[in-house]
């Protein structure tokens, strides 16, 4: 029996495990990302490749050492570098003597189906549909709870209360395999999270939107758990990029992209790959919804985000919204980040005071 593995990205492991085990495969989840994973990636990966490539490479090495022999990786056809990750990682791993098969998911479902059959033998379509159903449900539920967690952290009564609930929820949903159970879990945790609601830690509501490259936005190890730092500073955070929104866009199921494009049109006329145009469009949309500030996250040398980073100052000036661009590499330390975020939140509160809309004690 072949053992499947896949890279980490935020809560992807929950849904990916559900999908592959529902299809009846053995799944080996790479060990959680640690400093060791990063070190492995940096050691073997190309020097100027972006951070996600290195971390994924580390994931694969650790998973292969645990016994995995099939790697499932996302593919694509550009212009972001992500589409070519798999190919480069395959070459590097083979070069270093690792034995495995790699299967790249391309944006072409028929091609993917035949690829899966080639590696794993026959699978009935009914089984696939079943697996997709439960996976989709899980992804959606996790994202809904996550959105709530981001809001509730700013108003929790006891420090760390929300995180505790969130971690418990992730463990429980990972175990259930029934759709009804997932619904029940969702209701239960929404109620429990709403119960934690107290007053704002800073006395006022500071709303911060997070935009940027999907891997940095979703993976807490890489972004140094920025949403937690912000939550503890009393800011309620909103993200626009989730697995659900990405999949919906990928399968052309949502109008979100049309909205983003029209919002960004004044500043950036066409898509630049990755989430470049999303960063611009969402910044404008956040500004329209009277958010206090926006933070852009991206890995060092990320091409689409560099384009947005160049344009964002103009957006920030004319939409009158402060934006903080953070580029992460393998050396970023969390003390420096914390200081910058504290200063940013302070600035936003001061700005609110100046407007005279609120009075701070």
């Amino acid at each position, binding site marked *: 029996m072949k053992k499947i593995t896949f890279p980490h990205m935020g809560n992807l492991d929950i849904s990916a495990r559900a999908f592959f085990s529902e299809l009846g495969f053995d799944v080996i989840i790479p060990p959680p990302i640690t400093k060791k994973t990063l070190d492995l990636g940096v050691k073997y990966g190309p020097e100027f490749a972006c951070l996600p490539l290195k971390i994924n490479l580390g994931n694969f090495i650790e998973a292969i050492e645990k016994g995995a022999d099939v790697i499932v990786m996302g593919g694509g056809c550009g212009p972001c570098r992500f589409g070519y990750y798999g190919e480069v990682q395959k070459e590097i791993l083979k070069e270093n003597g690792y034995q495995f098969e790699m299967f790249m998911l391309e944006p072409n479902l028929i091609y993917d189906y035949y690829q899966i059959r080639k590696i794993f033998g026959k699978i009935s379509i009914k089984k696939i549909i079943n697996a997709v159903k439960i996976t989709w449900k899980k992804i959606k539920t996790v994202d809904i709870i996550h959105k709530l967690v981001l809001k509730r952290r700013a108003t929790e009564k006891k420090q760390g209360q929300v995180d505790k609930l969130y971690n418990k929820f992730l463990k429980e949903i990972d175990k259930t395999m029934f759709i009804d159970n997932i619904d029940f879990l969702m209701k239960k945790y929404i109620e429990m999270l709403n119960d934690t609601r107290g007053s704002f830690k800073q006395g006022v509501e500071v709303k911060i939107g997070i935009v940027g490259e999907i891997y940095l936005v979703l993976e807490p190890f890489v972004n140094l758990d920025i949403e937690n730092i912000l939550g503890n500073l009393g800011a309620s955070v909103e993200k626009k990029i989730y697995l659900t929104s990405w999949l919906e866009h990928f399968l052309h199921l949502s109008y979100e992209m049309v909205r983003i494009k029209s919002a960004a049109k004044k500043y950036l006329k066409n898509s630049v*790959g990755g989430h470049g145009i999303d960063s611009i469009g969402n910044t404008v949309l956040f500004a329209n919804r009277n958010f206090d500030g926006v933070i852009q996250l991206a890995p060092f040398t990320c091409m689409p985000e560099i384009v947005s980073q160049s*344009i964002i100052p103009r957006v920030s000036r004319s939409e009158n919204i402060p934006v903080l661009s953070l580029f992460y590499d393998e050396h970023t330390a969390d003390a420096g980040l914390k200081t910058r975020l504290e200063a940013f939140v302070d600035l936003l509160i001061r700005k609110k005071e100046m407007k005279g809309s609120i009075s701070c004690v």
Partner: protein
Amino acid sequence: MKNKVGIPRGLMYYYYFPSWKIFLKEMGLKVIVSPPTNKKILDNGVKIAVDDICLPFKVYYGHVLELLDKVDYLFVPRFISLGKNNYVCPKFMGLPDMLRSHINDLPELIEPTIDLRKGIMPVRTIAHKIGKQLNKNYITTELAYWKAVKKHKEFKRLQQQGHTAVESINLLEKKQLTMEKKIHNGRLSIAVLGHCYITNDKYISMDMINYLSEQDINIFTVEMFNNCILEKAATRQSKKLFWIYNREVMGSAFHMIYDREQVDGIIQVTAFGCGPDSLVKELVEIKCKHKSISVLNLNLDEHTGEAGLITRLEAFIDLLQRKKMMA
């Protein structure tokens, strides 16, 4: 009357300048090119650019600043794709928008969107769009377009006879249409592989090409190969590389490694912060290792000192000569 158009001497200048020039000239404009890159241009560009963007873009910004108050139009095409299933680097796709964000009082931009994935004769359509922007009639545009196409063919032919892009541009200025370049047997052959806008810019590449030619070395650069050969060589990689200009670089590397016996070494010239190159470099390096061909990786940024670079080149040449004598 607005009639002066500026072309910054950077990025796609090295791929298409002769045809752009004749096209804009036929449209009744006076073409002004910024001077070759110098320290002032680079410094100005670095000042306005974001830190992380790659070196050639910083240089390009500098050239734009240089032209700012001398011209009425600025020719800044927005490259997206040059055919089915290929792209250019995302930074090209946002180039006019990035300029607008960095520089406040830009002259009117001529910013054709070069997206050749759909349509019949898409380049001709683009030409007519420019014609409309400049208020020229249909026939003038059509004639200008065909002249530009012819010029581009001449430009390509000169390059394939063994001249670098800048040499070919200079030959065309002198109205010289063919000139064979000889490949001397018995000399070292080195492939200098990198984007045209890096290897041909004398300032950022520290005039590497001239230095090597003075050492009596046969030099091959990416622009000297026929596209079909490169395309074929690039298919050695199982997944198709979707950045077209990097596919050319990778194709020429693979062509040198596998199809030509006489190449002694490969110099990979990349710019600091170039995204696609960071991946392609790795793939080429692995292939070179298998065939035991020597590679020198040069990563250029705005701080590179000339002395350090020359020392590395000298050492590399010494190594290749030693290797050749041993064989």
